[in-house]
């Protein structure tokens, strides 16, 4: 059998020698450039095959031969299939296409079902008091930043508290879940569910929705956010997506890192729609349980939108984010269609129709 030509390095200097390698009777013979030696095949370590890169044969004592002809190495040394497995996968067109299709399918289904599922399972298993300190901190920060004490009269406040208590008791949520009333000029007619169980209702919202059933519908929706632990799930989902994007794109280069931020933003908006639907569905159930019609939620949404379009002051927008001072549209006077609400939530008309359907 003809020898395999190779570059030989003795491992002590970086001098290159051109040699010929021959394998015969369990022995490897290296000869050329004024040197010759023999080693048992078993003592030669062969590097795993990869693309068209030359193969390295390592000899005891740190020397190595670099061979360009991969096929010749596999043949002469009868390299086990296992050792070339990764290379076979990577260079087989059919397997590459299959990996491509499966990867896209996995990413898509992970994004569609896997991430929400994992976040929900994790959130439901985490202790309930994990979030309560965040709620208190968050409310304190909001009080400093944009809330004023409520200016509703005592009778109105008592009525709201009563409605809330009835809903909470019907929902089976713990008594630690409470309602706070605030005058929040900058965020307009608004309701928030802080993680850990504080529902905040602003004065403009309480005034705009005179009907008790409609207020109850909004409160029930916010209780839905608390029941389903949406703020915690937001954080978990964002973290999972960010980690996954980092794992996939971060390996490439900083250039790809920039591109990785795009899907994260899209995903966030998409998941928030799912949460709003979930909170709405919870609200229908709770409204029925307390002898009201789910239609009340649709009416409340319509009233809020009408109020937003007339006033401009009142911004029908609810937030379930956990970030303490994270209400971000301070100072702006958005009309209802301009900002977050309609872009990140199912359209009001859609939600009104869903409420009507649930009422039937």
């Amino acid at each position, binding site marked *: 059998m003809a020898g395999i030509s190779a570059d030989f*390095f*003795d*491992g*002590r*200097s*970086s*001098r*290159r020698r051109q040699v010929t390698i021959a394998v015969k009777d369990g022995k490897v013979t*290296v000869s050329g*450039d*004024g*040197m010759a*030696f*023999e*080693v048992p095949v078993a003592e030669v370590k062969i590097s795993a095959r*990869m*693309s*068209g*890169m*030359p193969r*390295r044969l390592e*000899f*005891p*004592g*740190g*020397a190595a031969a*670099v061979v360009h002809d991969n096929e010749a190495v596999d043949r002469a040394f009868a390299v086990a299939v296992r050792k070339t497995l*990764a290379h076979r*996968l*990577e260079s*087989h067109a059919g*397997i*590459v296409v299959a*990996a491509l299709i499966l*990867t896209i399918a*996995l990413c898509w289904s*992970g994004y569609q079902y896997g991430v929400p599922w994992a976040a929900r399972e994790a959130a439901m298993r985490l202790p309930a008091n994990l979030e309560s*300190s*965040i709620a208190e*901190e968050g409310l304190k*920060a909001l009080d*400093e930043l*944009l809330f004023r004490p409520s200016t509703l009269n005592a009778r109105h406040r008592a009525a709201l508290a009563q409605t809330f208590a009835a809903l909470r008791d019907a929902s089976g949520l713990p008594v630690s879940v409470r309602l706070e009333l605030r005058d929040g000029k900058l965020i307009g007619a608004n309701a928030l569910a802080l993680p850990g169980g504080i529902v905040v209702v602003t004065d403009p919202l309480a005034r705009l929705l005179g009907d008790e059933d409609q207020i109850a519908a909004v409160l029930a929706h916010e209780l839905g956010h608390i029941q389903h632990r949406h703020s915690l799930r937001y954080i978990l989902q964002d*973290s999972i997506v960010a*980690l996954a994007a980092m*794992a*996939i*794109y*971060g*390996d*490439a*280069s*900083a*250039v*790809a890192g*920039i*591109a*990785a931020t*795009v*899907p994260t933003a899209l995903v966030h908006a998409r998941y928030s729609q799912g949460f709003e639907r979930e909170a709405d569905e919870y609200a229908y159930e709770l409204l029925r349980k307390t002898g009201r019609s789910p239609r009340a939620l649709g009416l409340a949404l319509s009233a809020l939108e009408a109020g937003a379009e007339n006033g401009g002051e009142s911004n029908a927008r609810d937030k379930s984010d956990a970030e303490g001072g994270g209400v971000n549209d301070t100072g702006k006077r958005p009309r209802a269609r301009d900002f977050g609400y309609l872009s990140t939530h199912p359209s009001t008309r859609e939600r009104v129709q869903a409420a009507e359907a649930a009422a039937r």
Partner: protein
Amino acid sequence: MYENPPSAAASAPPEAAKRNHEFKFTGDAAEYFGIWIVNLFLSIITLGIYSAWAKVRKKRYFYGHTWVAESNFEYHGNPVAILKGRIIAFAALVIYLGSGYYSQQLALGILLVLSLLAPWLIARSMAFNAINSSYRQIRFHFKASYQDVFMAIWPLILFVCVLYFMPQFKPEQTRMPSAQEWATLFLPTVIAMLAYPYVVGSIKRLHISHSAYGAAPLTFSAGIGQFYKLYLAALGIAIVGILALALAIFVLAMIPVVGWLAIPFAYIFFGALLMGYLRARVTNLTFNSTALDGHVALASTMSPMRLSKIYFVNLLVIVFTLGLMIPWAAVRVARYRAEVLALESATDLEAFLAQAGREVGATGEEMGEFFDVDLSL
């Protein structure tokens, strides 16, 4: 086992005389795509565990396809060490993010502890990468103490300290913040901006001047001032670029649909321009200041415009293929980087290599008997 010829120097010197040896990258986008997608798929179905093996294959590919003077580089990293490093990095990230959920102060405290550990981790990681890289069967080495690394990155640690010990300051609507409050608000940013060129330059210097190829030490001749000059120029470009970008967006916003759709391209264009400029200049400065044992110098002639163009096209293609063309983009950059890099040898390179590249035995610490990590993600 085998007989080394009695004297390597005595044998006839190769005919190649004193000349430049250009680097060459022989990787191929289609071929690398196969490696990349199989890596990605296996990493997903093993919930990230295979990513350590994937990283080794990726590095082997890029090292193995980088050639100079008719030999290629080799990467020998052990995937298990990389997996360990990744688990540690992942745990640190989860602890940091999780504590941020409780309290910002606690998260900053954890960040402070991590940044005090950072010099040691950086030294370990650089040593790991060096010892696992070889050329012509001679390994690279890196050795630096905690203090060495600390002196290079101390502004970063100071930055975290300032964040941690700075009085918590919440803006209130009712009154303007006092001068002192303004100062504390901007102090971390000012520190970061002033220190950034220092940190980049001193990390490059640390990395290269503490490395060796076999027994031959690498030297680094650039001063920190040169990095400041470079970043100052980049700042100028950024200011002009932001003004131009603002103007462009203002104009584009007035053209319905077509103009609006063009706005993201303006952003990408600006990002690619700035990044291309910085990367090209930093790469040139770093390589052109690097020499091996005083005999062989590296020469990089990267053009900021060419690199910006490559980045711009890469970004566009990556965005429009949702990341599927990342392998193509990575190969393009690697090819260009190699294309403009050369070894300049004052004497005959082969003769020099035969002499200089003496292997020194790896110390136990280098072999990572104690703690083998690679944190370069």
